[in-house]
């Protein structure tokens, strides 16, 4: 490299370093190796006849079914499921942020609410399904309420823990500058608890997908859960697997979206990145 190009080079490097990492996580070829290998083996095993086609369809048949679904009905189901997850997750997470902040701030609120929440949390959320169906019918409401219930607890728990882990010295800074309780929450406690909050949000999002399927399996006429149960009733394992794959893609995409938001919001953190660099 000619010596005169060095300053430009180092300048570019410096600029690159300063930018926070906002890129979508890129998958290397290594990530694709195992799934592709599994597909190839499965295709072979089914084509040779070691597995019956009516129980385990070949990956190529699943791909074909997926393609056919994508020409029509699939988007209706995807849209219905996405809307339910978005509504349930938002409601559950928003309530958890409100109540979690309150309980994190106040020992009195904790004394009143925490034991009840612990008890409610111990109930497997699917146990609510019959009750929700009885109370709210088989419309959209019970599904959204169930997803909200599932999303609530991970966010609530991690936020309370996050607020309680905030460095006392930062809270003291708030006192020194006469911050009102609201300003203390907004300017110190929430930003400091943000790493925990994001952990909770990501856990809540994956639970939301789980509860969505539970809700749609039981009573629905649209949605990916409905597609699953439809596939079972019509003995079409290819439809079931296609629905599972779509759920996996949607779950992964929504988590990646949250991860990008997390990286953006937490660019200030000075933490170990897992690659031998700090």
């Amino acid at each position: 490299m000619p010596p005169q190009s060095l300053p430009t080079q180092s300048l570019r490097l410096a600029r690159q370093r300063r930018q926070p990492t906002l890129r979508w996580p890129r998958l290397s070829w290594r990530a694709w190796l195992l799934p592709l290998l599994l597909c190839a083996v499965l295709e072979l095993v089914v084509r040779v006849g070691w597995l019956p086609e009516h129980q385990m369809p070949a990956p190529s048949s699943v791909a074909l079914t997926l393609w056919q679904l994508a020409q029509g009905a699939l988007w209706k189901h995807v849209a219905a499921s996405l809307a339910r997850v978005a509504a349930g997750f938002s409601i559950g997470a928003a309530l958890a942020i409100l109540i979690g902040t309150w309980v994190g701030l106040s020992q009195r609120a904790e004394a009143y609410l925490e034991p009840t929440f612990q008890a409610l949390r111990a109930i497997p959320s699917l146990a609510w399904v019959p009750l929700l169906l009885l109370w709210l019918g088989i419309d959209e409401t019970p599904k959204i309420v169930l997803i909200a219930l599932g999303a609530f607890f991970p966010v609530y728990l991690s936020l309370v823990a996050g607020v309680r882990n905030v460095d006392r010295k930062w809270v003291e800074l708030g006192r020194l500058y006469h911050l009102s309780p609201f300003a203390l929450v907004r300017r110190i406690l929430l930003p400091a608890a943000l790493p925990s909050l994001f952990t909770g949000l990501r856990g809540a999002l994956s639970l939301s997908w789980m509860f969505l399927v539970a809700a749609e399996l039981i009573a629905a006429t649209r949605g990916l859960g409905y597609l699953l149960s439809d596939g079972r009733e019509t003995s079409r394992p290819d439809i079931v697997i296609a629905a599972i794959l779509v759920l996996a893609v949607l779950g992964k995409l929504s988590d990646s979206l949250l991860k990008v938001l997390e990286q953006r919001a937490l660019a200030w953190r000075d933490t170990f990145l897992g690659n031998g660099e700090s």
Partner: protein
Amino acid sequence: MSALLELRDIRKSFSGVSLSLAPGEVVSLLGPSGCGKSTLLRIAAGLDDEFAGSLERNPLLGFGPDSDTGRGGGGVGVVFQEPRLLPWLTVAQNIGFADGWLADDTRIEHLLRDVGLEGKGELLPKQLSGGMAQRAAIARGLYGRPQVLLLDEPFSAVDAFTRIRLQDLIQQLALEYDISILLVTHDLDEAFYLSDRVLLLGGTPSRLRREFPVPLPRPRDRRAVELAFLRGEALTELHQSHVI
């Protein structure tokens, strides 16, 4: 002239300590670890109200958590042992923390220049060295144009060279802005170099052992014989009272 800050017969982990801070005066609380000097400073800052005795602040000063003199933390600035910068805010946002969104950018620029951090306002705390972070903390302490600056061992976590530079910076800023300083330290050199009076704390339970006036003009030369003599006297006192 009446004192800006007066602590009378303060008892907590120590027995009956009194001190006052006059306008423009620099007073050091010198003593070994655990003698309660940081606690005294926290009491003066209004961060600790569980103590016996009385704390009087000049009403003109209007500071402390019970004061509602408005933005900027009133007439007092505090710099802690560690920079205590909020990691999610830039250096400039940390300096103007008292006013949040309404922070005075011109004032922040001015302070950045004063503490030698010009052009570093947009950096995050994780991008600063220990000395730079402490400079930012000093700038934050000065943001509200305080009449009193409370310093809690502010240079103990930085290296010796940075410490000398920061001590000179504090001396220069105190002269420039006519600020009174209450400095808590366990560094004899630092105490005598910066102060008009040095209060020696020690013993069990801890109490005020002796007061050393430092009648030397400013700016001072840290190699001055008078300073060495005063340090010697303080060491003798510390030995005689079995503090060290």
